[in-house]
C-alpha cells in the first residue's frame, strides 16, 4: 500500500498587482503518493509553477493547507522550510542554475555537504551519465549536460521528491530524452517521487498520472495504464 507523500487541500494563491488581483491558484486539492511519477500539463499562466513552488517550500499559499508526510508546510517559518528543502526536496528548473564558479562534481558536492544522507557526488553524476565530466565547469558543457548536472545535484541528496519545472524546455528532443531518462532512473532506482511540469503532451506518457491544470484549478486527472520509458518517446 503506497503512503501519501503530499496532501494538499483548498490551495489558493493570489498575487496583488496594485488594484488587480491575479488568482494563480483557486482551490487545488491534491494527493501525491510515494514513488509515483506525476506529470503536470496546462496552458501558460495556469498556475503550474506556482503549485510546484508551494509544494517545494519556495512559496507560501494564500489559503489552504499542504502537508508533507506529517509536516505542515503552511505557516512553517523560513528556517523550517530551508531544512525541509535541504532534507527532502530536489529541484530541477528549465534554466539549470548551476554555480558557474564550481565544476560539475563541486556543484553536486555543494549539496552533499549539507544533506543528511547523501550519495557520493561521483555516483550521482554517473546516474545521469556524466561520470566522465566531473572536473568540467558549466561553461565547458552543453545545455543538456548542464541540465544533467542539475539533476545529479538534485538527486545526490536522495530526496523524497524531485520537483522539475520544464526540465527539457530549453533542450532539443534527443537531449531532452537523455535528461528524462536520468529522472526516470532516479525514480526507479531510488524510489524518488517525481513531479514534472511540461508543455509537451508526449512527455506525459512517462507518468503514472497526468494532471491537467486550467485557470488555477486541476481540471482533470488521468491515469496511464502503462508508464512509457522516456527512450520510447519522441517529439
Amino acid at each position: 500500500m503506497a503512503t501519501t507523500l503530499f496532501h494538499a487541500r483548498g490551495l489558493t494563491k493570489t498575487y496583488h498587482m496594485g488594484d488587480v488581483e491575479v488568482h494563480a491558484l483557486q482551490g487545488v486539492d491534491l494527493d501525491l503518493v510515494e514513488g509515483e511519477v506525476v506529470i503536470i500539463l496546462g496552458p501558460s499562466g495556469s498556475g503550474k509553477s506556482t503549485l510546484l513552488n508551494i509544494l517545494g517550500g519556495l512559496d507560501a499559499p494564500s489559503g489552504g493547507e499542504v502537508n508533507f508526510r506529517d509536516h505542515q508546510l503552511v505557516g512553517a517559518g523560513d528556517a523550517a522550510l530551508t531544512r525541509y528543502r535541504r532534507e527532502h526536496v530536489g529541484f530541477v528548473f528549465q534554466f539549470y542554475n548551476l554555480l558557474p564558479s564550481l565544476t560539475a562534481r563541486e556543484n553536486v558536492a555543494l549539496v552533499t555537504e549539507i544533506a543528511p544522507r547523501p550519495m557520493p557526488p561521483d555516483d550521482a553524476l554517473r546516474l545521469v551519465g556524466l561520470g566522465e565530466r566531473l572536473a568540467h565547469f558549466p561553461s565547458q558543457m552543453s545545455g543538456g549536460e548542464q541540465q544533467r548536472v542539475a539533476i545529479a545535484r538534485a538527486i545526490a541528496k536522495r530526496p523524497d521528491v524531485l520537483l522539475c519545472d520544464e526540465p527539457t524546455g530549453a533542450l532539443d528532443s534527443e537531449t531532452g530524452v537523455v535528461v528524462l531518462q536520468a529522472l526516470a532512473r532516479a525514480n526507479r532506482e531510488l524510489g524518488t517521487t517525481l513531479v514534472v511540469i511540461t508543455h509537451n503532451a508526449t512527455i506525459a506518457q512517462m507518468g503514472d498520472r497526468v494532471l491537467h491544470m486550467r485557470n488555477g484549478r486541476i481540471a482533470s486527472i488521468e491515469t496511464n495504464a502503462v508508464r512509457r520509458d522516456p527512450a520510447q518517446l519522441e517529439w
Partner: protein
Amino acid sequence: MRMLTRKLVRDVVGQAGPLAAVAMVAASGIALYISLRSMRGFLARSQADYYRDYRFADVFVQVKRAPAAAAREAAAIPGVRVAEPRLLWEAVLDVPGLAEPAVGRFVSIPPAGEPRLNVPHVRVGRMPAPGTGREVAISEAFAEANGLGPGDSLGAVLNGRWERLHVVGVAISPEYIYEMQGTELFPDNRRFGIVWTPRALLASATGLETGFNALAVELAPGASEPDVIAALDRLLGRYGTLGAYGRSEHASHRFISDEIEQNKVGAVILPGILLGVTAFLLNVVLSRLVATQRAQIAVLKAFGFTNAEVGRHYLALALAPVAAGGAVGVPLGFQLASATAAIYARYYRFPVSEVRPDWGVAAAACLIAATAAVVGAALSVRAAVSLPPAEGMRPPAPARFEAGLLDRLGAQRLLAPSTRIVVRNTARRPLRAAAAVAGIALAFAMLVVARYAFTAVDRIKDVQFQYAQREDVSVTFREASPRRVVDALARLPGVLAVEPLRVVPVALRHGVIERRTALLALPAGSELHRVVDQDLHVHRVPSSGLLLTSKLAEVLRVAPGDSLTVAVREGDRRTVRVAVADTVGELLGANVYGDLAFVEAMTGESGAISGALLSVDPRREGALYVTLKRQPALVGVGIRSAALAGFEKTIADSFQVSLGIAVIFAVVIAFGVVYNGARVALSERARELASLRVLGFTKREVTTMVFGEQTLLTVVGMLAGAGIGYALCAWVAAVGNTELFRIPLVVTAGAYLYAAAVIAGAFGVSALAMRGRIRALDIVACLKTGE
C-alpha cells in the same frame, strides 16, 4: 531620448544603494579637497595680506644697547627702506587669577604715533596713549587665555619696581602670529604674551632714554637680504648684536610657513585617495550594470540608438553620483574649511579669519571627481557601446571559469566548495579585486598613520617632559649672575634642589655653513636636565668639546672628531675652534651642549650663570610662585607642568581633528568598498545565490558566502595596508625631519590593531546593511527566467 532619460532615472533609483555609496565617497573626496585646498589658500592668502597690510619686517636684529644714531646709519644701508629702532624687554608678569608667574615680552611703541613696521592691529579698545602713563595693550591670544580685556590690570616688575599696568587694548601683530617664549617649544598663551607699551615706560627699565636695543628692517624691492644682514652685523658689532636674521629664522613666520607647506602635501594625497576610490567604485557598479543590461543595450541599438547615445546614457549614470556627491560635498567642504580655519585662528591670529567660499576650488574638486568617475566608467561604457546587438540579445554563456593555479596544485581538495566559490569568484576579476584591496589598504594605511602620529607625539612628550626636562621650574636671569645666586635660589620657599646653567648665544661655523643658536652649558652630572635621544637613551655631556644634536651636525656637515668655529656673541665676543665630541639623535630642536666648566674656559668668562633649574616641593609651589613674580632679576620663568599641559592641549586640539577626519574617511572608504563589493556580488550572482537557497542553504550560509569574498579582499587589503601604512609613517618621519623637530618612527602594534578594529567595524556595518538584502532575496523571481 525621453525614454532613455526615464531609464536613466529608473537605473539610478534601482542602483540607489551602490550609487549612494559612490556618492558618499565622492562627497568625502570633494569635501576634503575643498577644505584642504581652501585652507591652504586661506592660510597663504591671510599670511600674505597680513604681512603686506601690517608691514611685517624683513630683517630683525637685537643688540645690547645702541645709540639712536646707529638706527639712522642702518637706514642708510643700501637696500634698507625703513629701519625702525625699538625697545624689547622681557619681564615676569603677575596675571590676575594665575598662580604661576607669566612672562611678558614688552614691545615699545614710538613716542609719536604708530610703529611703521610690524604694525599692531587693534581688536578691542585702543593702543596705549604715548607719554608716561602705565597703559598697555596685550596680545589677543594672551588676553583670551587669561580672560583679560580693557579695564583689567597686570603686575610687572619693570624698573626694579612693582608696576601696575592698565590694559587699554587687545591687539595682534604679524610679528607674533604664533607667540612663543624664546626657550619654549610650544605656545603657552596663558603664561606668555606680548605687551605693547609706550616707549617711555621701557626707557627707564632698559636704561635707554634715546637709543634702542632692537631694530626692525624693511628691505627695498630687489634688495639682497644677505648683503643687508652682513652690513647690519658690521654696523652693530660694537653694540653687542646677537646677529641680524631674516624671516626664514623668525620663529612665528617659520611655524606658519611650515604649516602651509604641510597643507600642500595633505591637499594632494588625501583627496587623491578618495577620488581614486570613487573611480574604482563607479567602475564596479557600472560594469555590473552593463553586464546585466546586455539585452537592454542590444535592444536600444537594434532600435537604432547610436553608440554615442548609448555611451552618453551610461556616462550620465556615472556622473549622477558625482553630482549628488558634489551637492553634499561642496557645502560640507566649505563647512569643514570654516571649522578648520577656526582651529587655526586660535593659534595663528589673522585680522580676518573668515573663509570665503572659493568656488574655483569647488569647481576644481567637482571636475576632478567627475574625471575620476568618467575614467572609472570608461571601460564599462566602452563594453556597453561595443556590444553587437545580436550578441547582446543572446543570453551570455555561463561565466568562464577555469582551473586556476590553486586547482592545478591540488589545493582545492583542502577547500570546501563554498570557499572555492569565494576564491574563484575573486580570482575571476583580478582587476576589481586588486582595486578593492587597494581601497581597503589605503583606508587601513590612513588609520595606521593617524594612530602613529599620536604615538610619535607621545614619544616626543616622554622624551621631553619625562626624560630630558626634569626640573619643576626654570628661571632665566636678566643679566649673567654670579654662581652664588644658586644658594639664594635654594633658600626660596619650596625649593628642594638647584642646578645652574648658562646659555651662550653663539654662531657655529663649518666652512661656509653657519647657524645662529644658543649653546647650553650644563654642570657636570646634571640631574635636572639631561640630553636624551629618541630611543630614550641618556647622553652624557662630554667634559671637553661639544655635544650636538645629530640634525645640527648634519646641517653643519660635521661628525664627532671634527672641529667647529664658534663665534661667541657675548662677553669679549671671541671666536674659538672647538671639537665636536659627540652627537645625539634628539627629537626637538637643533641644540648644542657643553660642560659648564668647559664653556667657561672656552668663553673666558667664568663664575657667571644665566639661569637655573629648580626642583620644587609641590606642596609649596604656590609660595614659590608668589616670590618669583616679584623678582626683577628674572626675565623668564618656565614651569614644566604648564608647558606639558600646553603641549597636550596643542596636540589634542590639532590632532583630534585630523585623526577624526582620517577615521571618518577611512570608514567611508572601507564601507564603500565592502558594501559595494557585496552589493555587486549579490546582484551579479543573485541567481546563483537563489539556487543555493533552493538547494537548502540557509540565509546565514549564503550571507557568509557573499561576504567570504569581501572578507578575503578585506584581509588581503589590511595586510597590504599594514605595509603601506608603515611606508607612509616612514615617509611622514622623513618629511618631518626638520631642524625644528624630528618625528620618531615608532609604529606600534596598537596602531595596526586600531586600524584593523576600525576597518572591521566598517565591514560589520556593511555586512549588517547587506544582510537584509540577502534575506529579502526573491528566490522564485531569480530563477524564473534565463540569465
